[in-house]
């Protein structure tokens, strides 16, 4: 396995958290992993993105330039990264937030109305996790068991009640 993943969106959409869950999935499956956020003024309400690498081999640069997997939750992020996806790669796009469709034929694009789905299922703020569910389904990167353990690691103890809600969001994404 050697996945280079970019997750991107507005600050507040849970981009860094979704990346953290992915990184923990890799950790639990005993892979090499790295997680690198964009930092600085960018994160204050602007666009946020993070690079996650999951690999069988030690990770060189943790900065992902050409992702094999991309998750975009707003138009600026989609515009910024859609053409950087590796041929053969996969893009997961929140179609509630991004109306455009890519004309690239060398990658698989999945359009999920994640923000709408979250609202419909009373899972506000969990569009990120719905997209993550879809990514895990389409890539078979990690088992549901691994994802659950990763969630347990990523969710702070004082928010433990969020675990089931997050797992519900994963399932919605997987079944989309």
């Amino acid at each position, binding site marked *: 396995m050697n996945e280079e993943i970019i997750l991107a969106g507005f600050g507040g959409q849970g981009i860094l958290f979704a990346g*953290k869950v992915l*990184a923990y999935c890799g950790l639990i499956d005993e892979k090499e992993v*790295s997680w690198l956020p964009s*930092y*600085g003024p960018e994160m204050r309400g602007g666009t946020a993105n993070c690079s996650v690498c999951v690999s069988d081999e030690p990770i*060189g*640069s943790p*900065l992902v330039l050409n992702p094999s997997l991309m998750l975009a939750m707003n138009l600026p992020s989609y515009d910024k990264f859609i053409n950087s996806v590796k041929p053969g790669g996969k893009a997961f796009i929140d179609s509630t937030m991004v109306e455009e469709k890519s004309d690239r034929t060398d990658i698989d694009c999945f359009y999920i109305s994640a923000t709408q789905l979250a609202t419909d299922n009373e899972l506000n703020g969990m569009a990120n996790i719905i997209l993550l569910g879809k990514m895990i389904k389409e890539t078979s990167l990690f088992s549901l068991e691994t994802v659950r353990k990763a969630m347990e690691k990523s969710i702070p103890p004082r928010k433990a009640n969020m675990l089931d809600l997050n797992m519900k969001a994963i399932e919605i994404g997987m079944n989309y």
Partner: protein
Amino acid sequence: MERNLMKGNEALAEAAIRAGCKCFFGYPITPQTELSAYMAKRMEKAGGVFLQAESEIAAINMVLGAAATGVRAMTSSSSPGISLKSEGISYIAGSDLPCVIINVQRGGPGLGGIQPSQADYWQATKALGHGDFHLLVYAPASVQEMINMLTKAFDLADEYRMPAMILADGLLGQMMEPVTFPEIKANVVEKPWATNGHQFKRKHNIVNSLYLQPDGLQKTVQDRFVRYEDIKKKHSEAELYKTEDADIVVVAYGATARVAKSAVNKAREAGIKAGLIRPMTLWPFPEKQIVEGTKAASDVLVVEMSMGQMVDDVKLSLECSKPVHFFGRTGGVIPKPTEIFDEIIKIGGAK
């Protein structure tokens, strides 16, 4: 041992606490702020002192005061803040005090930027303040290595009575990687020189860097340089990767070395005999390892996130015995593996 994901900045803080750091004095600056925040949360519970100073200058002088009493003390900052600390660092070195200073480098000069950089190499290894002196300078390339090196930095600082620096960068500080915290047995070094109250049991101790007699100052500095020679002999470190048969050896440290390693692997796949030397201590600079690791090589390529600073030390180590090329990115731009690969091809292709 349990593996956990941890940010570089937080791992440095936790490692310091585990290494017996009793006092941490900080001041906010991107991209190292998580370190202070972690200390604020944990230090008091661990029985230590966390204090946010009014400036970087005050913070380093608080380190001076705490270190003088014999406890392990630390401060952290990023490039512009380290410049402010340079006064205090010179006094600490001149007073033969041990401490650890973290520099999570960002682009410069001036306010520069906040993205990763290695442009403080000269500052850290040649001129972190006025006068004849050195710091131990460690250059980690992973979050785990930050933990390991921090412990060593405290131990050697105590042993040799000198400041030590962890020279990281924004990328290492901000990234999360799996880490484990090994059981640490911190070296407990006796500090009979400490100004912690003489209790009428000994003559008063003086922590001082003032020597008004030139002979006296010369002798003090010369004695210090005798210790430096001992450190050079015993404590320079470097990782040599596929260098035995390498025609082209890349030399890179810190985050850049990770990118360079990817490029070296790519070159090997393309049939080019490339290798990598990764200095892990920048002072003392691993001169012998540079000579050793380039024995088979016809060319050396130094890669840095700067306009070329460590390249000077590589050239000095090799004494003009072979061509030393340079490739750099600066201002917060991180070199791409493909760019370094292209440089390797360019040099190899010229043969």
